């Protein structure tokens, strides 16, 4: 799991069905730098970056993101909000369902299409 200053992993749970990682990002977290001055929110790409790291814990370190389907970002995630990144396997080995929850409910949800690069980079 990549170490990012200001981002704390609170709990981690990995099962055969999926993975859940619970985080809190301090105002000093690099994900908030410049996004946006005076109105910090966790960028969508930061959420997906964390989802990809969760996928690597579930499936393996070489897994990459091949695509997305039906991603909806419904609620903003602010500094000091606790949020939980969960991936659940589906019947297709390369497809997982993503859900990111905050106290108010589901912040982000969608489907990740995972891939393993043909060439190690």
């Amino acid at each position, binding site marked *: 799991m990549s170490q990012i200053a200001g981002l704390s992993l609170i709990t981690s749970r990995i099962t055969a069905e999926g993975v859940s990682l619970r985080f809190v990002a301090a105002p000093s977290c690099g994900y908030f730098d410049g996004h946006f001055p005076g109105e910090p929110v966790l960028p969508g790409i930061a959420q997906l970056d964390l989802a990809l790291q969760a996928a690597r814990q579930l499936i393996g370190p070489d897994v*990459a*993101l091949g695509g997305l389907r039906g*991603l909806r*970002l419904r609620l903003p995630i602010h500094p000091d909000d606790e949020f939980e990144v969960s991936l659940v396997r589906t019947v297709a080995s390369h497809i997982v369902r993503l859900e990111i929850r905050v106290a108010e409910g589901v912040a982000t949800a969608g489907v990740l299409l995972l891939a393993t690069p043909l060439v190690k980079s």
Partner: protein
Amino acid sequence: MSEATPPVQGLVPHRGAARFVERIVAWNADSIECVGQIPLENVCVKEGFAPALVGLELAAQAAAALEALSRRGSGQSWPPLVGYLVSVKEAAFSVSRLCAGVDLTARVARIGKASALATYEVRILHAGLECVFAILSTYAAQTRDSNRQKEP
């Protein structure tokens, strides 16, 4: 296709390592082409590379620049609005990662708009090769700064 191409810094609210878009190549009422880079100091960059999904941010910023230009052209209040990414209907990443600190091209075409919600077809290219394709939607909200500018 081209109209006047103003500096991009005043068109998007992103700052520092969060701002990817650097210059506008061309734009018209419904589309824009920008060049930008993933800054080496961005937190998503590890050993000079970022996951390809980070290209979506460049695309979203290009879309934000298009909306700012469109508002300016129509005489509306055009200080940057915060454009929240609200959906990615679909995305395809033909590479696993993008190199930080090198020029990437964002081609964005608006394919739908309803009030503050707009949908775009976006492509990110490196050296002419498409790395990212997506259909995404953003919602534009007033920033506290843009609201303050309206105060007497």
